[in-house]
């Protein structure tokens, strides 16, 4: 196989020799170290393959034996180059195209977020493109692990994140939740305090000293489970104080105010059928629009579809085209009936309740009332809910100790 590749690179020919004594010619050429292969017997003489340069070496022996040579086929790179000499521009262009493609493959041209919440995903995408990986960043400068850590620190809502660099695209997979809080609890020593004013309904203490009881009313900031443990001696005097990270679940009944309104008068868009489309070509930040249609109407919705050029699935390129569709519309003044407005507000409230339930919050009482007030329909009231009121606060004594230690160090330096 290697020999075949080498022969192809150097070039070889298929020749036919004919005349009086082909055997003599064969003996002469092999004695002079001209290698031949696949020697075939033909009616006129012999047909064989030999190296490109051997043709010149064979000339004196052909004359000596009075034989004639006919080149049947020319195979190999030297002959391909020779044949395509007139197409230098094409070959050069193809070479430049390949080089360009290689250079473009060194950069990141697409950042995608695969997440649950579209709003968070859009914010994250904007932030990534602004601060961490602007489009056109060298791929070798993108450190996925570092990026994951930075994003996790910046966006606390993200419980799980993974970055993948494939082709010229950076894909970020994320999941939202409250998972990181527990990790913080384990790292620092401190107390569990009330996040809201509440009446405690259920309490489980895993670590620390509980300071409140079930059915007790607490206010925001009150310590529920203390992370300070006192060790007393025989005289009931404090011998030692140790600090731990208080851990536990505390549920309480809290009240959440709810207020929402809707104007009874609203404007509805009436789209006309006279929509116009045009295409814009872009390369990086530069755009060219060959034709822009004249828009006579003052108000119109613009819908743009960006089509990035890509090779296969992940090899994105910094150019493509945008398809813009402008649909004119007129505003029509309309009015909700009382029932319609109430239904909309009720639907919004149901959504809010559903969101609470998904978070594991139990709705005990719903006092929200929907009433008309002038030109508005208002939903107002209180939701009595049962939820976790746990909030972690670093032990103030430790913070105080730390500050003292820092001041002491500074004084020593001086």
């Amino acid at each position, binding site marked *: 196989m290697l020999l075949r590749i080498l022969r192809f690179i150097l070039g070889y020919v298929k020749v036919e020799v004919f005349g009086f004594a*082909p055997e003599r010619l064969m*003996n002469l050429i092999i*004695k002079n170290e001209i*290698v*031949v292969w*696949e*020697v*075939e*017997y033909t009616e006129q003489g012999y047909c*064989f393959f030999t190296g490109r340069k051997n043709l010149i070496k064979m000339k004196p022996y052909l004359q000596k034996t009075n034989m004639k040579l006919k080149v049947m086929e020319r195979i190999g790179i030297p002959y391909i180059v020779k044949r395509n000499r007139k197409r230098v521009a094409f070959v050069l262009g193809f070479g430049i195209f390949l080089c360009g493609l290689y250079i473009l493959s060194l950069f990141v041209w697409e950042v995608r977020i695969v997440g649950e919440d579209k709003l968070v995903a859009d914010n994250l995408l904007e932030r990534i493109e602004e601060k961490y990986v602007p489009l056109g960043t060298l791929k070798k400068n993108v450190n996925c692990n570092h990026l994951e850590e930075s994003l996790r620190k910046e966006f606390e809502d993200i419980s799980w994140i993974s970055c993948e660099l494939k082709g010229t695209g950076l894909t970020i997979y994320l999941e939202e939740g409250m998972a990181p809080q527990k990790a913080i609890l384990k790292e620092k020593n401190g107390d569990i305090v009330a996040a809201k004013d509440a009446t405690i309904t259920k309490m489980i203490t895993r670590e620390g000293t509980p300071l409140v009881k079930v059915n007790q009313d607490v206010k925001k900031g009150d310590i529920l489970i203390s992370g300070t443990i006192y060790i007393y001696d025989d005289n009931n005097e404090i011998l030692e104080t140790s600090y731990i990270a208080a851990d536990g679940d505390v549920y309480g009944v809290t009240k959440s105010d709810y207020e929402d309104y809707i104007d009874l008068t609203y404007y509805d868009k009436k789209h006309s059928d006279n929509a116009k489309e045009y295409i814009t070509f872009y390369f990086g930040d530069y755009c060219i629009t060959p034709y822009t249609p004249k828009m006579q109407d003052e108000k119109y919705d613009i819908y743009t579809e960006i089509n990035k050029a890509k090779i296969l699935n992940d090899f994105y390129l910094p150019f493509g085209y945008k398809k813009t569709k402008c649909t004119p519309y007129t505003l029509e003044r309309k009015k909700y009936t009382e029932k319609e407005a109430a239904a909309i507000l009720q639907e919004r409230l149901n959504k809010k309740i559903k969101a609470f339930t998904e978070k594991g919050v139990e709705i005990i009482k719903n006092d929200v009332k929907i009433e008309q007030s002038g030109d508005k329909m208002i939903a107002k009231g209180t939701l009595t809910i049962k939820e976790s009121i746990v909030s972690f606060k670093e032990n103030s004594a430790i913070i105080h100790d730390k500050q003292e230690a820092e001041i002491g160090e500074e004084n020593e330096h001086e």
Partner: protein
Amino acid sequence: MNIPGDVLCGELLIRMFGNREIIIENHKGIHLYTSEEIIITCKHTMLRICGEKLLIQYFSGCDMKITGIIQSISYISKAELCC
């Protein structure tokens, strides 16, 4: 001294793979080549290979490889060849 004949006297060295392939070393060239018969010149004698669809796969100064359906191999003297 137990020196092989092919090294000492340049004797013909033949390797056969069934009746499909034959590698000949220390030859002195070809005397006749057709698709049914090949006569190879050696130092002291001549080698005659008969068969069908005979093809010289490669051919160099010291060795050659013949493929095809080999039916017989025989040594013939130069005098015999003249007759």
